[in-house]
C-alpha cells in the first residue's frame, strides 16, 4: 500500500510503498530498506489516515490510509494492546487513590494518637498561641471580670486534678453559636450562647470538664496531626500549588474543623466526669445538657453540636452512658459565681439581680437562656 513517509531528519515528504509481512512492516526510501516490527510500532488515527511510529522514541513516521492499514494488519492485536494498557493504568490509579484514602481515614487516625503523645508540650503550647491569635480576630473575650475569674478558677482546679503539662485557661467568648472548644496548649473557650443554654452550674462544669479532658488526653494535637495527613493527601491528589493541602492545615487551626473521633469524645466524657468526681464536684450535669443539645440544636452549625447531632442516637447513647457514671457532688460554682458567669457576656460587670439563684430554678429565670444562637445583641 501507498504511504507518506517522514524520515525524522527533515520535514520533507517521501512517498513509499509499504508491505506487511507477518510481524514486519517493510518499505524502501531512496534505495534504503526499512523494517519496523509490528510488535513495537505505535499507531494513531488521524482523520482518514493512520500515523505509524516505529515505537519508543523514533522520530520517523508513516502515514497510511486507515482502511488499507486495517486490512493489512488484520489479526494483529494493536487495538487490544492499547486497551489492555489503559485498563491496567486505570486499575493502578484507582488502587493508588484507594491507598491515599486509606492513609487519610485509617492510617493517620491510628498514628495520630502516638504522634500527639510524642509531640513536645512546648510545640503544642506555641501552636496554641498561634491558634488563639487567629481566633482572637473572630472571638472576643467577654467583659465580665467576675465571671471570667470564676471560670478561670474552675480551670485551675481541673488542672490540679488532671495529669497534664498545660495550664488550663477557661474563658468565655462572644460568638453566635452554642459551642465549647479546646485549643492546643490548654486554652478552653465557651461561648456566651452555651453559657446561656446551661441551666445549672453542673451542666456548664460538665462541658468544661469534657474540654479539659480533651486537653489532658491531647486529642487536640491528634486532630492537628490528622489534618496534616489530610493536607498531605490533598496535595498528593490535587497538587501542592493549589494550596488545598495548606488550606486543610490552616483550617484545622480554626476551631470549626478541629474534629475529634467518636472514641475521643466518649473518652472525654468519661474522663471529664472522673475529673469532676476527683474534685468532689457533681458529675450529673453532663447527661441533661447533652440531651438538650441534641434536642434543640437542629439549626446549630458549631462543630461540637454538629458532632453530637450528626450521630443522633450516638449522642443519646453518650448521654445515657454519662448518666450511669454520674455521681452527686458539690456544685462547681457558688450562687454568686454562677450569677457572675451568667452575666459574663452581658457587657456589665455585675451579677443579674435574680431571686434565689442556683439550682434548677435559674433556667426559668434567666432571660434568653433558652434562645440559642443569638450572639449579637
Amino acid at each position, binding site marked *: 500500500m501507498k504511504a507518506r513517509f*517522514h*524520515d*525524522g*531528519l*527533515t*520535514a*520533507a*515528504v517521501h512517498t513509499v510503498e509499504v508491505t506487511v509481512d507477518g510481524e514486519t512492516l517493510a518499505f524502501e526510501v531512496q534505495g534504503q530498506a526499512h523494517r519496523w516490527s509490528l510488535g513495537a510500532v505505535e499507531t*494513531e*488515527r*488521524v*482523520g482518514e489516515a493512520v*500515523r505509524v511510529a516505529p515505537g519508543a*522514541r523514533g*522520530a*520517523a*513516521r508513516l502515514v497510511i490510509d486507515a482502511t488499507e492499514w486495517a486490512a493489512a494488519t488484520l489479526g494483529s492485536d494493536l487495538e487490544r494492546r492499547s486497551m489492555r494498557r489503559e485498563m491496567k*493504568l*486505570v486499575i493502578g*490509579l*484507582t488502587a*493508588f*487513590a484507594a491507598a*491515599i*484514602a486509606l492513609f487519610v481515614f485509617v492510617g493517620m487516625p491510628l498514628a495520630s494518637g502516638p504522634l500527639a503523645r510524642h509531640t513536645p508540650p512546648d*510545640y503544642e503550647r*506555641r*501552636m496554641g*498561641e*498561634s*491558634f488563639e*491569635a*487567629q481566633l482572637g480576630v473572630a472571638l472576643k473575650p467577654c467583659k465580665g471580670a467576675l465571671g471570667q475569674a470564676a471560670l478561670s478558677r474552675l480551670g485551675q482546679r481541673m488542672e490540679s486534678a488532671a495529669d497534664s503539662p498545660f495550664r488550663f485557661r477557661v474563658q468565655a467568648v462572644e460568638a*453566635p453559636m452554642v459551642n465549647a472548644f479546646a485549643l492546643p496548649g490548654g486554652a478552653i473557650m465557651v461561648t456566651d450562647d452555651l453559657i446561656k443554654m446551661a441551666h445549672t452550674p453542673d451542666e456548664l462544669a460538665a462541658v468544661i470538664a469534657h474540654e479539659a479532658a480533651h486537653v489532658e488526653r491531647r486529642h487536640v494535637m491528634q486532630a*492537628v496531626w490528622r489534618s*496534616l495527613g489530610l*493536607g*498531605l493527601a490533598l*496535595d*498528593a*491528589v*490535587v*497538587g*501542592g*500549588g*493549589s494550596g488545598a*493541602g*495548606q488550606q486543610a*492545615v*490552616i483550617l484545622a*487551626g480554626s476551631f470549626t474543623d478541629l474534629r475529634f473521633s467518636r472514641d475521643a469524645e466518649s473518652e472525654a466524657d468519661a474522663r471529664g466526669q472522673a475529673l469532676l468526681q476527683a474534685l468532689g464536684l457533681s458529675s450529673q450535669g453532663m447527661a441533661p445538657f447533652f440531651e438538650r443539645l441534641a434536642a434543640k440544636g437542629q*439549626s446549630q*452549625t458549631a462543630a461540637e453540636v454538629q458532632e453530637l447531632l450528626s450521630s443522633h442516637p450516638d449522642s443519646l447513647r453518650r448521654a445515657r452512658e454519662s448518666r450511669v457514671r454520674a455521681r452527686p457532688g458539690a456544685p462547681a460554682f457558688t450562687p454568686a459565681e454562677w450569677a457572675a458567669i451568667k452575666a459574663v457576656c452581658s457587657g456589665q460587670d455585675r451579677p443579674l439581680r435574680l431571686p434565689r439563684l442556683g439550682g434548677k430554678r435559674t433556667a426559668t429565670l434567666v432571660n434568653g437562656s433558652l434562645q440559642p*444562637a*443569638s*450572639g*449579637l*445583641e
Partner: protein
Amino acid sequence: MVVAVPLSGEGSSLRIEQRAHLPSFLGLSLKNGLLNLITLTLYRFWGKTEVRRRIWASTYVNDDPLEYTGRGVELFVGFLIALAILGLPFLLATFGAQLLGPAIAGLIVVVMYIGLMFLVGFGMFTAFRYMASRTALRGVRFHLKGRAMDYALSYFGYGWLSAITLGWFWPAAQRRLAGQLWGGLRFGDGRFRFDLEAARKVGVYGPYALGWVGLIVLYIVFAGALFGVMSPMFAAAEGGDTPPVPGLGMMVAIYLLSTAMVVAIVAAFAPYHAASLRSVAAGTSFEGVRFSLDLKAGTMVCLMLSNIFLILVSLGFLMPFVQARTLKLVINRLQTSGAVDLDAIRQSAQAGPRTGEGLADAFGISPI
C-alpha cells in the same frame, strides 16, 4: 523593524486549519470526568494527554496534522517532582508556622507567597517548553529556547510593576511575556521570531480600559447588590430577635450574585483577551511567514460566555470540549502571509525535558 524573508523560491504559503470533530470531545469529556472521579483526579494527566493528542492531530498545517508525542506518565512524574520539591516543603512550612507562634508564622507565610509568585512564571515557561518539545509536524519536533529562570524573573518583575500601576502595565507585560515564549519557539532548525513593534501595532489598551473600568463598576454594583441581599440579616441583628444566620434563600442569592459577577468580569475582559491574542499573533513570524488573527471582540465575548455556561452546567466535566471548541475557533481565524520551504526544515538535536510541567499543574495554570 522588518523581518528578513529568506525566500528560497521554493517556499510555499502556510495554511493552518483546525478540523476537530467537536461531538467526539463530548464522549472524551465524559470518560475523563468519570475516570477522574474514581481515581481522585489522578487520571487527569492521562486525560489531559489524550485531549491534547486529539486536538493536535486535528490541527493541520498544509494538510499535514500536528502530532502530540507527550505521555501521561511524563506529566505524572513531573507532578510528583513538583509535589516533592514544592508541595511538601510548603505544607510543612505552613504546619511549622503554627508551631512557631503568630509573628514568625506571618513572616513565613509572606515569604512563601512571594516564592509562589516567582514559581508561577517558572511553571508557565516549563509547561510551554514541555508542550513545544512534545509537538511534531512531519516527524520534526518543536522546541523552546531560553531559560525558565529569565522568564520567571520577568514574570515576577512585571507582576509587581502591574500591581504598582493598578494593573495598567499588565497589557504591555503580557505582550512581552508572550514574546519571550513565541520568540523562543523553534520548529526543527526553523525559527519563530517575535517583533514587539509589530505586536504594538495592534492596540490593546482600549479594550483593556474597557475591562478595567468595567471591573470597578462591577465591584460597586456587586457590593451594592450584596448589601441589598444581606440587609434583612443586618436588620435582624439590630433587632436582636432572630439569629443573624444567613438562611438558605440568602445563601442561594449570594451564590448566584457571585456567579453573575464572575461571568460579568469575564465578559468585560473578553475584548481585551481578543486584542491581546491579535497583538501576539501580529508580532509572531516563522521564517518568512507572518501571522495575523481575525478575532473580533464580539466573537470572543460569545465564546467565553458560552464556555462559562458549559463549564458551570456540567460542573467542569465539559472542560475538554470547551478547550477543543476554543482552539478550533481561534486557530481557524489565524491567517498567514509570506512563504517558507518546509521541506528544508531539519530536525534539531533538542529532545526537550524528560518530564512535563509539574509546576504548571501544581498551580493549575497550564493552558490546555
